[in-house]
């Protein structure tokens, strides 16, 4: 028969009416349809049938809903009764789920925030940052030279806009209000490319003249309060007045560009010594590509532009999509590895909680075999039973979800503080509530679906007789249960090992001897007239109490970023070109910082040639230069001079990198920081700092006093690691706690089930120890097995993680043993407690139980 619309309609009808109740009606309709067909034709008959169905639909649907509602009402009543009757069980169930869900949502808040970086720009998909790969040392940094961006724009039609961006810190002043602010020199197209709208909501067109400044709303409020900022003037660095030509909305937290003010790039060009130089990598550059072009294509074309102009630079350009900057670039602030890592942890916590739910449900299902059988005898179908069990756990999930909601709101601020992050408030976007419910529904279907199907499909005779066959089902259930517990504890153990390794590596880094003193070293950056009065400044500071040493340096010893090539030395292999870090210090610095001289001497006042014509190298430099007995040999950086000493290698970069070659010179023009070694107790510290502040006021009255400690600076370098390990530690304990919660639930249940057995055993003469052993041995075996599974896995993964650090601690056996013993103790404690309790019960009372 040819399929046509009326056939389809009939099939549709048949589908709904093919039961005992409705087959007669269906037959009637069929007959009527045929009659119509004969008398009025096919089309009219089809139309009539369609109309009939349409008319019947509302009442049809209503009747289905009513029927279901009635069933639901019943299911919920039973569920609520069960929920309230088994208080401990319900409590464990609910807490387990609520904790896991709240924890995952909190983690995912953070993950989502990390992923949201730089996604608010309207042109986000077309924006790229130019990064330079330095062939010579195989590293890539997001810096370019001044001429690159304009050249790209004029030479390639696919590049629509470019902007350079050079960060600058300035003292901004308006009347008596003055602060140090961070800002940047940018090309006017900056505001065309990035979506930083003005307060009024328009786009900023750019700078009106070379002396105009664009500030953020927050900055405007700071200086002008509620007054209109546009048109007013601000004084920069006590020298130059700028007119505010635009106020932009505050830059969102999830932007990698974070400046408070913007100055025209033309000013930067005026100040630069050699703006046409192709190989002085000093600023950031962003480009906007036309819409339908792949950035790889463009990258191929532009990659050699620097080499074309300066072959010796050996620098190759690449394009980095804006959205990847935060997470994928080195020094981008975020790290995609941590994001993935925490997503996995969120999922693992959910898995652990789901396993708990599944285990508790299957375990408890055994006590309900009779109930199932009775329901079946009374005519409940598989569907009814399935929905009943699903409904019962639905109540648990609803309560748990609401509790999780409370947990999240309660702990959000704490989590924010702990993570050191400024996550947007949970009230800004309510997507996460959807996520929470989605999570709940997913866990609900997975973790209750299986037990519910199992239970609903039981055969009546088997269950009612409750003989071997039922027991078989139970033991099958218990096999699965054991596997799940195994999995759960393996995850927990893995997480504990990882926590231990991470915190050990961190304390290794923090306590590692860097080769110089970094405790109680205060430093500040020289401002105003300090540069001209270095000696007077040093003397004044040194007068204070508790001050051991005052020294000057061009860079902080924790992070020396500048490096130079084109160096020459005695007996140099002509093809060898080495790049070395450069540090310029005064004659006190090396001693003050306790950097060890291994041969030769340090800088000294007694030799006037030491300024500019003497070099001190580190061991690594000597090794690379292949110089034997280097002291006394000549060396050339700017001027030819003598190597006067060798210092022991010290760590002047993050411990993720190995120690690079370093030149130390004495070049007063380069001094930037004053380092003060303080030797005073905590109590006198404030007095010492006050003294330094008064000296500051004396030399630089216009600038606010700002100081830091070297140790803080050092720890700042590992901020991500420290924060990550802290968050991670909390969630590990949470995961372990949830696992134990599940185990506890199981044991409570088992102890209850075996009350009689224990009573009988005791009457027959078994001792309390026997009983405790009987009840705990299974779990002891399980946890031991989990250790065996988790150890090799953790070893492989954590080894890989550790080796990503150049300097790392060892992966000792003790870590594994500690985590093993930990889990056994923590996991078995509740088991042991409960079994001792049931072992001590008087058999008379346990036998009377039920």
């Amino acid at each position, binding site marked *: 028969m040819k399929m046509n619309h009326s056939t389809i309609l009939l099939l549709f009808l048949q589908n709904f009416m093919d039961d005992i109740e409705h*087959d*007669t*009606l*269906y*037959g*009637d*309709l*069929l*007959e*009527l349809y*045929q*009659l119509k067909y004969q008398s009025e034709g096919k089309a009219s008959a089809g139309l009539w049938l369609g109309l*009939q169905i349409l*008319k*019947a639909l509302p009442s049809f649907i209503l009747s289905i809903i009513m029927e279901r509602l009635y069933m639901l009402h019943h299911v919920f009543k039973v569920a609520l009764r069960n929920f309230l009757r088994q208080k401990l069980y319900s409590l464990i169930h609910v807490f387990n789920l609520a904790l896991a869900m709240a924890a995952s949502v909190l983690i995912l808040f953070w993950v989502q925030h990390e992923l949201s970086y730089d996604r608010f720009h309207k042109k986000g998909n077309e924006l790229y940052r130019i990064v330079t790969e330095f062939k010579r040392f195989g590293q890539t940094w997001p810096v370019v030279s001044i001429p690159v961006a304009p050249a790209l724009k004029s030479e390639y039609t696919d590049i629509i806009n470019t902007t350079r961006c050079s960060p600058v810190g300035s003292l901004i002043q308006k009347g008596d209000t003055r602060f140090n602010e961070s800002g940047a020199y940018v090309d006017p197209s900056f505001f065309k490319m990035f979506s930083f709208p003005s307060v009024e909501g328009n786009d900023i067109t750019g700078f009106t003249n070379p002396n105009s400044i664009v500030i953020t709303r927050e900055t405007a409020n700071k200086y002008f309060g509620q007054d209109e900022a546009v048109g007013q003037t601000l004084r920069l660095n006590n020298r130059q007045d700028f007119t505010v030509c635009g106020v932009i909305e505050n830059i969102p937290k999830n932007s990698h560009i974070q400046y408070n003010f913007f100055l025209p790039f033309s000013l930067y060009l005026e100040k630069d010594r050699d703006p046409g130089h192709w190989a002085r990598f000093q600023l950031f550059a962003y480009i906007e590509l036309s819409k339908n072009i792949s950035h790889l294509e463009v990258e191929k074309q532009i990659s050699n532009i620097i080499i074309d102009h300066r072959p010796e630079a050996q620098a190759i350009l690449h394009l980095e999509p804006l959205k990847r900057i935060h997470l994928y670039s080195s020094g981008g602030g975020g790290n995609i590895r941590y994001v993935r890592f925490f997503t996995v942890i969120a999922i693992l916590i959910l898995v652990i909680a789901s396993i708990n739910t599944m285990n508790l449900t299957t375990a408890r299902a055994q006590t309900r075999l009779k109930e199932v059988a009775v329901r079946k005898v009374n005519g409940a179908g598989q569907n009814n039973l399935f929905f009943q069990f699903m409904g019962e756990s639905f109540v648990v999930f609803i309560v748990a979800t609401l509790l999780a909601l409370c947990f999240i709101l309660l702990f959000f601020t704490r989590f924010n503080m702990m993570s050191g992050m400024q996550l947007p408030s949970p009230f800004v976007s309510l997507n996460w509530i959807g996520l929470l419910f989605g999570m709940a529904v997913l866990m609900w279907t997975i973790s209750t679906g299986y037990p519910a199907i199992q239970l609903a499909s039981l055969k009546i005779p088997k269950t009612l007789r409750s003989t071997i066959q039922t027991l078989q089902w139970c033991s099958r259930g218990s096999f699965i249960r054991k596997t799940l517990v195994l999995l759960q504890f393996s995850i927990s153990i893995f997480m504990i090992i990882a926590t231990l390794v991470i915190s050990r590596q961190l304390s290794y880094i923090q306590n590692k001897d860097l080769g110089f003193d970094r405790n109680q070293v205060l430093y500040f950056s020289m401002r105003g007239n300090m540069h001209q009065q270095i000696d007077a400044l040093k003397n004044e500071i040194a007068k204070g109490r508790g001050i051991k040493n005052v020294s000057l340096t061009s860079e902080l010893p924790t992070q020396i970023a500048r490096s130079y090539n084109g160096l020459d030395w005695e007996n140099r292999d002509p093809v060898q070109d080495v790049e070395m870090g450069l540090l310029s210090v005064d004659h006190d610095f090396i001693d003050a910082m306790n950097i060890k001289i291994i041969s030769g001497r340090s800088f000294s006042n007694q030799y006037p040639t030491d300024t500019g014509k003497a070099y001190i190298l580190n061991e690594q430099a000597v090794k690379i230069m292949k110089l034997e007995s280097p002291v006394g040999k000549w060396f050339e950086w700017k001027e030819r001079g003598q190597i006067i000493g060798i210092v022991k290698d010290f760590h002047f970069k993050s411990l993720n990198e190995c120690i690079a070659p370093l030149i130390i010179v004495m070049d007063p023009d380069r001094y930037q920081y004053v380092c003060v070694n303080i030797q005073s107790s905590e109590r006198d510290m404030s007095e010492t700092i006050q003294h330094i502040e008064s000296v500051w006021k004396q030399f630089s009255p216009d600038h606010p006093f700002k100081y830091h400690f070297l140790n803080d600076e050092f720890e700042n370098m590992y901020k991500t690691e420290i924060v990550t390990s802290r968050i991670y530690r909390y969630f590990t304990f949470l995961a372990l706690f949830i696992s134990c919660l599940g185990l506890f639930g199981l044991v409570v249940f088992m102890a209850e089930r075996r009350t009689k057995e224990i009573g009988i055993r005791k009457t027959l003469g078994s001792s309390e120890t026997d009983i405790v052993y009987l009840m705990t041995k299974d779990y002891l075996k399980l946890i031991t097995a989990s250790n065996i599974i988790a150890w090799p896995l953790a070893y492989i993964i954590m080894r890989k993680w550790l080796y990503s650090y150049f300097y790392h601690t060892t992966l000792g056996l003790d870590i594994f043993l500690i985590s093993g013993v930990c889990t056994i103790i923590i996991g078995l404690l509740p088991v042991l407690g409960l079994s001792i309790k049931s072992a001590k019960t008087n058999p008379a009372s346990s036998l009377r139980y039920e």
Partner: protein
Amino acid sequence: MLTKLEDQILMTVWKFRGEAYGVNVYQHLSEVLDAKVAVGVVYTALDRLTKRGMLNSYKGESTAVRGGMRKKFFELTDIGIQELTKSKAVHDRIWNDFGDLLEKET
């Protein structure tokens, strides 16, 4: 009290004597009333009358016709017959008063 439609349906069921089911009741009514009757009306009326005990329903054997679907037959119960008689009496009484009009017309 029976409505006019119920009255007519009961009589139609009687007319078919145990062979009455949805389709022929519907067809007969359409013919007699000489108007379009909605199918649903017939079925709801049949259901209502069954609930009120005036009709009795039973299912026939399944046959080869109409896709093997069984028919649901209706027959009048004693209550049904009583109600129908009552209805007839009321009807007659009212028509008695109306007799003059008919005579005048003729």
